[in-house]
């Protein structure tokens, strides 16, 4: 029998919203799947699409970017840049052999801890349905 | 059949090929094949791409004659989009093409072919190379290296790149020529012409004349010829009509767009290389040495044979001398080298002729093009033969299908025949040596595949 699939999801969380919402979810003891590994960034606009791809190439089962609601970016329009890039990532993932469902960008505000937990739950379920990342631990051109 | 001789890799040629020669029990040649080992699939992967990008992609079909693919392609794209370059644009394209011919011919004659003649077909392989010439005649070697570099440099300085060029663009040319550039080019081309005249004399007197015995016989086959001429029957490299000549010297002229009515491609299951043949002769395809059918050759000897005359004086003089010696059409395979040197002179003269045209420094170098649906054939005379690109495009101006007949491939069937002829002639009773095998390669090398 195949060992149980324990997925890992990398989430780039904006310092001002996603990360704060995750902090708040903790304070409120909201339980969500343990697959998430949060990487704090100052702004969702800081995340280079290459990082999303890199995470998938390295075996992440899913990658999330969590940025601020439109109009609420701490840096004017960093989240809009992130949204535009996300559209690109969405489109390109299949080019590089990944289901685009392995990637999710979402917007929420620092108070939306429940929303945060729900989104993580949704992503976790998605990733379980997709099964293990087919390219995990495979040379996908990411290393020379 | 008990032995198969395999010569691999075929050396001092462009590309990847192997010769296999089957000997019968008596040690005589039963069969032979020239295998083309790789295939890259340009016809497939240029599909879906914007047509104006194709001239920058197909150059990689050949790194020795990238200008030819570049220009044939750009002409095909022009035709797809229904645009004709302005006169200045056309002049600039042709100049680059003939200058690229110069470099190629120097490379082929001196770097690839000459070691066989200067050092001898039987010289040890470790010596029989350009390195050997460097040691045997350093002055010549230096001069040749300098001339090649000059030719490449002139092209590069003006057009950005010599290998895998980019300056030919749909609708014309990407940059104009300044007066200073023209002066520099004129000066350079004069030097090259001087060298070409020297090369012609040197090649004739010091090299080819010494091999009279094999010049007419090694790899000799009887075939037709294909090349390009203008309406006066003069030799053309950049544009003109195609002329398909039979072995008996009779010929038909047709527009390049009609190539499909005259040429088909034969495939043998032992080679990735396709073999074009003359379908319009209605005699079918056969590589039988005694009764070849549908076989024609391209490249220098073909162009020298099919043209009525050459429009530049020194080359015309050399052509006359050649015809006096070998008739029309001349069939000796090694005569390709001689014809190559005549063409070298022509291309240098033609460069100067183009540079003398005042329109070449004009400002109007490119028409804006409107991508759209179409079909187009582009053709040029490449060093290795007639090069044809044909594309169709969709309403976005993206390629939907492509067909390419590359210079070398026209000669694939003749080369197979020449190998057979040479091998049969040279290998008797199971006797062969390195020198003999090299002579068989020499027959191939003459075509400069």
């Amino acid at each position, binding site marked *: 029998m195949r060992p149980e699939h324990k997925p890992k999801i990398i989430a780039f969380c904006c310092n001002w919203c996603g990360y704060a919402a995750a902090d708040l979810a903790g304070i409120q003891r909201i339980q969500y799947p343990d697959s998430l590994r949060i990487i704090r960034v100052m702004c969702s606009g800081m995340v280079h699409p290459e990082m999303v791809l890199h995470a998938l190439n390295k075996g992440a089962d899913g990658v999330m970017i969590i940025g601020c609601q439109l109009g609420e970016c701490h840096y004017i329009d960093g989240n809009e840049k992130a949204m535009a890039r996300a559209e690109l990532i969405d489109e390109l993932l299949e080019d*590089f052999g990944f289901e685009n469902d392995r990637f999710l960008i979402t917007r929420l505000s620092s108070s939306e801890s429940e929303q945060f937990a729900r989104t993580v739950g949704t992503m976790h379920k998605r990733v379980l349905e997709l099964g293990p990342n087919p390219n995990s631990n495979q040379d996908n051109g990411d290393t020379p | 059949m008990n032995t198969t001789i*395999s010569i691999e890799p075929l050396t001092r040629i462009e590309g990847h090929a192997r010769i296999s020669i089957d000997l019968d029990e008596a040690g005589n040649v039963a069969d032979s094949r020239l295998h083309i080992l790789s295939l890259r699939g340009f016809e497939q992967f240029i599909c879906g791409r914007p047509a104006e990008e194709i001239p920058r992609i197909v150059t990689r079909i050949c790194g020795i004659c990238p200008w030819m693919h570049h220009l044939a392609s750009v002409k095909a794209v022009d035709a797809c989009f229904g645009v004709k370059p302005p006169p200045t644009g056309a002049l600039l394209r042709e100049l680059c093409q003939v200058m690229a011919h110069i470099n190629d011919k120097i490379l082929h004659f001196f770097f690839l072919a000459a070691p066989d003649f200067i050092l001898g077909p039987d010289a040890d392989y470790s010596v029989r*190379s350009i*390195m050997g010439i*460097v040691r045997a005649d350093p002055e010549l070697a230096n001069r040749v290296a300098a001339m090649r570099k000059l030719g490449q440099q002139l092209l590069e300085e003006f057009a950005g*790149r010599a290998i895998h060029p980019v300056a030919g663009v749909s609708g014309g040319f990407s940059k104009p020529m300044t007066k200073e550039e023209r002066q520099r080019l004129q000066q350079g081309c004069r030097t090259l012409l001087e060298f070409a005249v020297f090369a012609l004399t040197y090649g004739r007197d010091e090299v080819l004349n010494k091999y009279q015995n094999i010049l007419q016989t090694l790899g000799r086959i009887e075939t037709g010829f294909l090349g390009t001429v203008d309406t006066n029957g003069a030799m053309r490299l950049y544009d003109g009509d195609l002329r398909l000549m039979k072995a008996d010297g009779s010929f038909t002229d047709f527009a390049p767009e009609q190539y499909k009515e005259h040429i088909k491609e034969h495939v043998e299951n032992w080679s990735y290389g396709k073999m074009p043949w003359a379908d319009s002769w209605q005699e079918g395809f056969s590589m039988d040495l005694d009764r070849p059918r549908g076989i024609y050759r391209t490249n220098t000897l073909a162009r020298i044979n099919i043209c009525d005359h050459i429009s530049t004086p020194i080359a015309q003089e050399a052509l006359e001398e050649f015809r006096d010696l070998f008739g029309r059409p001349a069939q000796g395979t090694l005569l390709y080298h001689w014809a190559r040197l005549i063409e070298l002179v022509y291309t240098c003269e033609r460069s100067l002729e183009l540079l003398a045209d005042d329109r070449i420094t004009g400002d109007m170098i*490119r028409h804006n093009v409107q991508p759209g649906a179409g079909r187009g054939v582009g053709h040029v005379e490449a060093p290795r033969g007639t090069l044809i690109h044909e594309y169709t495009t969709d309403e976005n101006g993206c390629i939907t299908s492509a067909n390419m007949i590359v210079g070398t491939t026209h000669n694939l069937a003749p080369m197979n025949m020449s190998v057979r002829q040479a091998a049969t002639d040279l290998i008797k009773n199971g006797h062969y040596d390195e020198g003999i095998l090299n002579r068989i390669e020499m027959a191939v090398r003459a075509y400069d595949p």
Partner: protein
Amino acid sequence: MNIRLAAESLHSCSGCEISLLNIGEALIPLLNRLQLVHLPLLMDHKYSDPAGSETEISIPKAEIGLVSGGVANTHQLQVLEAMRKSCTTLVALGTCGTHGGIPAMINEWPMADALQTVFSTVTTEPVDVPNQDTPPMLDRVYSLDEKTDVDIFLPGCPPDPTIIARVLEDFLDGLTPEPVTKSVCDTCPTRRTGKSERKLLRFTANARFDSNESTASMQCLLEQGFLCMGPVTAGGCGHQGEPACIRARVPCRGCYGPVRHQDNQMLGMLNGLVSQGIDFKTIIDRKSMLRFSGAHGRLRPLKEKKRAS
């Protein structure tokens, strides 16, 4: 003792070798310091005795081996393995070797489909794909490092002669060549302001420039709205001076491959464009951004579902 050099070209066009020859007169002293032991374009060393039963490819031992071209069929793979076995230092010469190059564009299609297309053009007699004495094609075109260890990467289509010369000289002098760290933009003299057009134009009309002025007075082609791959392409063309294509006043198409070996030219470029506010969906052929670096799994056949749409 002389340093021995072996060279091979695999799935390539010989452009790299021509570039090597373009070193010109300077090549001659260089060749005098090197001992050529195998170089099919220039010399007649064969893989094995023509009549021998030995099918093994044998290449003389060499301190340095140059291999151009990627790997597309079993024969090329054998040659590469033989080169690796014989050469102490293996150099991937040219972008085909380092990243697959133009031939790796085929990786967008299943190999069988591509072969079928080639052998069913309008002028080709209807036949099966040749399969006797022709080495079988691999499933796709690979870069050299996907199939063996490569010591030095020397990208370029072709690599600039001065770079090849310098690497050989460095090698002869016992130095390790420094990898390129900057893009084509480093030596590009065009004017850049950082403000660009919010759209991408096809190169169906020439760039704006004053023909009497040097390229230094021309505005950056990307800022003029032309897709120029300069920012995501390793520098070094044009003798490490003015980039070669810019000299011809045409935009870069990325022939030196990505700046860092493992980078992704398409992703880097599209991200750059999208960040400028350009709608990437208006780009008619984005895969073309990988036209020189389609190996390493970068280009792959489209999924059926995607192709249908």
